[in-house]
């Protein structure tokens, strides 16, 4: 037996793919989650709670339940497939869709909290200064909610990296396309390649810790500045 290198090509490929999936998902999550959070923070009535509950569902649902529904939704008979003209299962795009749904509450909730904490006042002031609503949103609301946006982005990214059940159900473990880190680690454990599993698992552990730590440090700074 020859000495195996610490990282082989397959491990690099799965790491790059995972980071790419997390980055793309985070961008989509911010684009979708920010207006949604804004609406949730401003809207009144029963509808708001219904939508907020739907957004929060992935927190309580087992990933396998979500993955099972997604697998059906991405199947050949589904309206979604008819609408897109192609299947999303077993593709990178399919994983992005799954990740966005799965991580949505982790992005929407911090942003919504930030918008709510801001109150009505800044937007009213902007309006009296004749700022158009959209202008006020971008130049007043978003900067004020920056800590919430940052927390949401970090959580969305980290949560996507840590995703396993949903990806297992709709991914099909295609190298370079859908075989992400968590699946690769599972594979290594299954095939008794524990040395490789240790490298990836240890890397993910360290990365997760650093992400959460840096988030807390940044939040502390931002809060300190405001006091």
């Amino acid at each position, binding site marked *: 037996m020859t000495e195996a290198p610490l990282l082989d090509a397959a491990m690099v490929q799965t790491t790059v793919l995972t980071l790419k999936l997390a980055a793309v998902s985070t961008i989509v999550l911010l684009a979708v989650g920010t207006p949604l959070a804004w609406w949730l923070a401003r809207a009144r009535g029963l509808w708001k709670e219904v939508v907020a509950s739907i957004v929060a569902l992935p927190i309580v649902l087992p990933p396998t339940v979500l993955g099972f529904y997604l*697998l059906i939704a991405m199947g050949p008979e589904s309206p979604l497939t008819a609408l897109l003209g192609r299947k999303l299962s077993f593709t990178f795009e399919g994983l992005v869709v799954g990740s966005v749904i799965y991580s949505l509450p982790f992005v929407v909730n911090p942003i919504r909290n930030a918008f709510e904490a801001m109150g009505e006042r800044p937007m009213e002031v902007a309006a009296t200064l004749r700022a158009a609503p959209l202008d006020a949103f971008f130049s007043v609301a978003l900067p004020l909610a920056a800590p919430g946006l940052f927390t949401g982005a970090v959580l969305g990214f980290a949560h996507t990296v840590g995703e396993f059940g949903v990806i297992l*159900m709709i991914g*099909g*473990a295609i190298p370079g396309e859908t075989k992400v880190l968590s699946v690769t680690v599972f594979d290594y454990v299954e095939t008794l390649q524990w040395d490789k599993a240790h490298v990836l698992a240890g890397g993910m552990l360290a990365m997760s810790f650093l992400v959460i730590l840096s988030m807390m440090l940044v939040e502390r700074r931002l809060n300190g500045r405001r006091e």
Partner: protein
Amino acid sequence: MAFAKGFLHGTSIVAFMALTIAPSARAGEVLAAVAANFTGAANEIAAAFTEATGHTVIHSFGPTGQIYAQITQEAPFEVFLAADQARPERAEAEGYAVPGTRFTYGVGRVVLWSADDTLIDGTGAVLGSGDFTHIAIANPQTAPYGAAAVETMQGLGVFASLGDKIVQGMTITQTHQFVATGNAQLGFVALSQVLDDESGSRWMVPQDLYAPIRQDAVLLERGAENEAARAYLAFLKGPEARMIIEKFGYDTED
């Protein structure tokens, strides 16, 4: 009066229970780790086993590789029904299993199956035409059914050309799910999974195209002193269990 009646009734239940338990005064429990593909057969065998001996079986179903990894980390399993021979052999060699207790309880058969009624014409021709976007197999590194699928495609000379159409299920169960939901138009599954399923189209892969999928069982060290565990393995070898195993689409060996 009512009280006396209730009391009598109560004692008769106790007496009845004592009688039923009597033949198996040493009724025990077996904790069996079983390969996911054998789930249906295992449940039926367990019911027959309980009826015959009074012992009960508690199952833990999972992928064979994962079960093995758990066994090496002191999982409390007493018997191991694997989807292959490699893991029980290894368990024996590494001291997790009782030497000399290993045997083949079933031989799995591979079917190329599609939920589409017309895709497969009863032969493997569709593999050559490549007229589909995804074909599902079980992970060939961990699941023997996946390895058999790869061996079959290699034997037919179509493996290289199908390369980018292959999607992998973590287990044969998940592979079946991919095909059943139509996400993959076809896939290599276990006969036991589609035996009762008249729908779709299929090709029974000839057995000369892949090495027999022998599934071995072994007594684990944790169950060495458990009489119920030994009784369970003996029952698994017996005629009643063999009938169930064959009914579920596995061959048995002498």
